[in-house]
């Protein structure tokens, strides 16, 4: 079986001592993404969402852990598998869902769709549809921080597929040359669409890809939110201390296809099931909460219920919000 290191967890997660509130928050945030994406998949199947729709299910620990490591004014930018990032940034689930359905209540007023949403308020800079293009953009956001002399950092996410784009390395070079405060987070979900890392990458340890630029890199268990948070804290400090960029390779896994129209012929059902059973990021936190008696089954059920209600409201809003007014065709082209 061409297993793509599927289930192998990255080496020993450094356990963060976490308190109850923190763990509960991670649980909630990850569960929100999971349920939201499941609902999006459902609406897609009903024909309410068009075009491309790339679901984040399985990768939730990455954005939730990283978001917990940053603070006010830090920026986030990613590619097109972006719903999870937006929810983690605190963007309104109803606004995200209504954008997926192309309605006027969407965060881009129906003009961006699944791959193109932004929030100045939450410092989320997209949502970009061209593989790798967000990497120079995130580097530029970090440049603006350095230019202004503040200590903000930019989280620049990209996938294992984008890690083979030339502009990523153009960005690495400038980021290190100018010591820009950017954390490059490679979400290695092990498949670039249908091509495994082994079939696409001469160096499969993607955290080493910064070596020729002197950018340090670390591999992180991206299925363990605590490991992600620990690595994120270190990386944020590295950047805030003026040391320039750093790479975090998050070993993660997407349960669903590349997009909704993925026939999934490149991996087996057993491979996916094995990861779900042994490495699920939400089950992991759930177990921690229960084992530490931070929460009872009942309390977790209550959280599940809350989340379902948020997601159902988002889906409801996304179906009832009107389509954009035809006059919107001609707005926002230039200022």
């Amino acid at each position, binding site marked *: 079986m061409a297993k793509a290191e599927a289930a192998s967890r990255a080496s020993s997660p450094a356990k963060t001592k976490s308190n109850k509130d923190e763990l509960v928050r991670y649980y909630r945030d990850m569960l929100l993404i999971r349920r939201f994406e499941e609902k999006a998949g459902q609406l897609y199947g009903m024909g309410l969402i068009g075009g491309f729709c790339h679901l984040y299910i399985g990768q939730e620990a990455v954005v939730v852990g990283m978001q917990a490591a940053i603070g006010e004014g830090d*920026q986030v*930018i990613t590619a097109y598998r972006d719903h999870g990032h937006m929810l983690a940034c605190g963007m309104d689930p109803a606004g995200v869902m209504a954008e997926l359905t192309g309605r006027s209540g*969407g*965060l*881009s*007023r*129906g*003009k*961006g769709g699944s791959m*193109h*949403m*932004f*929030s*100045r308020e939450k410092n989320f*800079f*997209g*949502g*970009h*549809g*061209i593989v790798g*293009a967000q*990497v*120079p*953009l*995130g*580097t*530029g*956001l*970090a*440049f*603006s*921080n350095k*230019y202004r002399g503040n200590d903000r950092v930019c989280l620049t996410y990209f996938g294992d597929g984008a890690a083979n784009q*030339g*502009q990523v390395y*153009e*960005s690495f*070079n*400038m980021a290190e*040359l100018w010591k820009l405060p950017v954390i490059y987070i490679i979400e290695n979900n092990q498949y670039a669409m249908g091509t495994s890392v082994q079939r696409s990458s001469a160096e499969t340890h993607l955290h080493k890809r910064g070596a020729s630029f002197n950018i340090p890199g670390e591999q992180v268990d991206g299925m363990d939110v605590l490991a992600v948070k620990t690595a994120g804290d270190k990386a944020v400090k590295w950047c805030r201390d003026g040391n320039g960029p750093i790479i975090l390779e998050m070993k993660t896994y997407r349960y669903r296809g590349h997009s909704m129209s993925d026939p999934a012929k490149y991996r087996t059902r057993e491979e996916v099931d094995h990861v779900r059973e042994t490495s699920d990021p939400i089950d992991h936190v759930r177990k921690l909460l229960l084992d530490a008696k931070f929460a009872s089954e009942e309390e977790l059920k209550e959280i599940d219920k809350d989340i379902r209600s948020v997601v159902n409201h988002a889906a409801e809003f996304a179906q009832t919000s009107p389509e954009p007014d035809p006059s919107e065709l001609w*707005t*926002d*082209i*230039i*200022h």
Partner: protein
Amino acid sequence: MPTEILMPALSPTMEEGKLAKWHVKVGDKISSGDVIAEIETDKATMEVEAVDEGVVSSLLVEEGTEGVKVNAPIAILQGEDEPKAKSNGGTTAPAPKPAAKTSAPPQMSAPQTATVREPTVAAGTPMVTITVREALREAMAEEMRRDPAVFLMGEEVGQYQGAYKISQGLLDEFGPKRVIDTPITEHGFAGLGVGAAFGGLRPIVEFMTWNFAMQAIDQIINSAGKTLYMSGGQMGCPIVFRGPNGAAARVAAQHSQNYASWYAHVPGLKVVAPYFAADAKGLLKAAIRDPNPVIFLENEIVYGRSFEVPKVDDLIVPIGKARVVQEGTDVTLVSYSVTMALVLQAAEALAKEGISAEVIDLRSLRPLDTATVVASVKKTNRIVTVEEGWPICGIASEIATQVIEQAFDYLDAPPARVTGKDVPMPYAANLEKLALPNVDEVIAAAKAVLYRS
């Protein structure tokens, strides 16, 4: 046998320069590779190395002399008694001659000082004559003084003082934080600039030429041009991409393309292509202040040309306005950038034959000021559009379509186009000349739409 040492060209467009310093004197023995002189142009300084061996028998041009023509003899070298006619044995190539013998610039010479004035400036405003290069530099310096968020980034913009010396002196005034030398990485720094603009800065990204920006076109169009729309109006991208566009001279196919219609095609971008120094300055200042991405197409051949510029504190030329440079009644001649020179020359020649041409400088290509063009055609009933770009889907094609759509009943002849030929730019001097539009073609087209021969 005496050998003449000729004034070399530092660049394909250099026509003359200053002989700044001699490193040799009469009687010195020199061999190939020795530095014998320094020459300067407004763009660069360079050492002249000897290519031949011998003894300097006379220096024909004193050091400090300005305006020494390329290929003019500057010194005479007396060879050894016997020319060393040793056989090369097929291993050593003969040293090349210092400069190409021919290659007169294919461009027609342009009026060095325009007589036309910016009509938006009040009559009586004092004028100062500066080059387009200086105009662009002044625009950037003034805007950088005005707004600390403005910075310049590109290849060789800082320590080298600009590949074409547009940014000369800016590093000294503004320092390395705001005048940033990039690696040769167009795709990367174009994207980085867009990200910085998203982050609230106002980048000026210089491409050494627009030919190299094809590496970066995804970031220019997809990231800079479309994000405002895709974000429902949240995410503006105030950025200027600028640099020389189109053919220089003798640099062949990959360095000679006109990208005007490529960028003018894209909603979300603004595109300007000035000719006169006042427009270069006023439009660049407007572009830097504009909240949108602006594609600023310059022209290497025009950089050194001098024009009058109004002496005012804050010269702003609005983007999207064409200018009637010269009024006329018989035929409308429309152009932009370097080919404005051809149009002005053609208008002068036509006037001698009693044909009154109205000359329009588009200046901006998106938004395109079709109203000014259409109003002119309603008056003259005939139009010729002149550009250096290719004919298929060119700016001229768009002008013709707009005129047909908006003034069909006023036309007394089909709109005519004079463009670059539909071929990759050839290197050979004669072929290059054929590939580029020329004054005679403009005159012929004007007469054709007037049904005169």
